[in-house]
């Protein structure tokens, strides 16, 4: 006695199909349940909402630097002296370890000239007037070394700007990596001048 639903008939049966379909659904369901348990570790909505930080520029004097928190990461805000800007501008981009500007206000492949690193690249809100000199001397960069995330020390290193104490990376007055294990220039966050004395990050 054989019919098409028993294995004696040979080949694939209705029962084989049910087994495979059931096991496949169980596997898909299992995989779908894993995702919420992975995704819960990603930044939560309230963390993502910490979107913008405003910097009051009126309190900064020439040559002064402050470290501020933006999106829970430390950032350097430096009002560079004329000689620091000049030093940075005189460097040939072709001689840099990382030739890209790493500036969120520009294209990904913009070259790492000093103008492309400074606040000249910041957006300017409608009606705000601000001098080119001020924008050129203002530098805002991440303060996390692109090697392994330490905060470089100000005023140290061979290029007069920042030196990372963890593994010895030297950055110049444009926040560009010059020597050491760090692979990239310090990244520059999105910036907008919302008034003549206020720069908004984010």
């Amino acid at each position, binding site marked *: 006695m054989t019919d098409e639903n028993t294995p004696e008939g040979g080949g694939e049966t209705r029962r084989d199909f049910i087994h495979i379909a059931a096991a496949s659904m169980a596997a898909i369901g299992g995989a779908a349940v894993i995702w919420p348990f*992975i995704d819960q570790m990603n930044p939560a909505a309230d963390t993502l909402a910490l979107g913008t930080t405003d910097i009051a520029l009126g309190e900064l004097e020439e040559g002064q630097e402050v470290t501020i928190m933006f999106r829970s*990461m430390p950032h350097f805000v430096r009002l560079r002296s004329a000689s620091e800007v000049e030093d940075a501008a005189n460097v040939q981009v072709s001689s840099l370890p990382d030739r890209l500007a790493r500036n969120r206000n520009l294209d990904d492949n913009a070259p790492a000239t000093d103008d492309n690193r400074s606040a000249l690249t910041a957006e300017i809100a409608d009606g705000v007037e601000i001098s080119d000199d001020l924008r050129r001397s203002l530098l805002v960069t991440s*303060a996390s070394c692109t090697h*392994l*995330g330490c905060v470089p020390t100000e005023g140290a290193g061979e290029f007069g700007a920042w030196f990372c104490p963890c593994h010895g990376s030297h950055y110049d007055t444009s926040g560009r990596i010059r020597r050491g294990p760090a692979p990239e220039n310090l990244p520059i966050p999105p910036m907008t001048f919302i008034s003549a004395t206020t720069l908004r990050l984010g």
Partner: protein
Amino acid sequence: MSGPSTYEPKTGFTRWLDSRLPIVRLGWDSFVDYPTPRNLNYWYTFGGILTVCLMIQIITGIVLAMHYVPHIDYAFASVQRIDRDVNFGWLIRSIHAVGASMFFLAVYMHIFRGMYYGSYKAPREILWILGVVIYLLMMAAAFLGYVLPWGQMSFWGAMVITNLFGALPLIGEPVTQWLWGGFSVGNETLNRFFSLHYLIPFLIAGVVGLHIWALHVPGNNNPTGISVKTKADTLPFHPYYTVKDGFAIVVFLIIFAGFVFYAPEVLGHADNYIEADPLVTPAMIVPEWYLLPFYAILRAVPDKLGGVILMFAAIGVLFILPWLDTSKVRSMRYRPMARWFFGFFVVACLGLGWAGAELPDTMVPGLGALGVDFLLFGRVLTVYYFAYFLVILPLLGFVEKPSPRPASIEESVLNGDKPAKAGAAPAAQPAE
């Protein structure tokens, strides 16, 4: 677990239990009547010592979790409170912190023991691999635990280690943000690290169970590397090795207590008594001593991704060690060349630890005149570390002439480890 069980329940209750849950039989066969080679030396006591270490860490850890607060605003203060105000908190936290170092001290002895006596060779490959898994889990637990006091070293250690994953191409940034639960190391990170730090010891306990299971199938290796052939080669585990292990555990605990009571901070860093500050990196950050060799390997490579890959490869290579060593002789006691290379390997590991603790451009004492700084020193030792596994061990099996081995464990014991008399030893003993 190997061979037929010799357990005979003697009372009505144990007979009743044995036919329902033979747990007493399992204990009897595993730790009482378990046949153990009669020539195990004190290097073989670290397995028992490590079991004690794991129990100490779990018990003290559960107690500490009753007083610790995993929040960036309270974590540092809660650890200070454990040290100063909680009854015996100073003692229990010291035991836990020193215990981590003692755990690694013992595991390194255990690993070197296995490498010298060829304990990773067939039929113990799975046993060895499970051991490497335990070692990896231990490093994860130690790293996560070190973050919890939320001092400067905690914070910046967490920053550097999580940023290692940022070196991965394309997925680097999403992976680090996933690990952090934010844009940087923060409260979310501390919270999850606490959760995982509590989990991992129980995973270790589970893998230890598998490790012991895998040990009891072929039985212990021994200093001669020769397989057990007859009952005369073995002794019952109890009382012979319970007492030997027990004595070693007592000596180990005396050293342990010496650190706890007289030098609880000697293995730590003073910077970790400064509360975490995301704006200031300490002038010098180094990992705990037991991770320094890997740190030196990381720094030996001028490329970020390359350094990370090499560091993980330094652990990964341990997994394939059973297949890299081509010698048919297990124990290096009978391998005149391998034992020298092994000696250099141990020295290289210690040297890498030293290199990891120093700044890369500092000159090595005594070698400064030759222009050898710790970076170069670390690079040379890194090359030897990998050459030992990838070049020396594979080649030695073909070029080395092993010295004569005793015919059996029993004979090696009775002859005081001298090789067998002429004619008594078979010329070649595969896989021994």
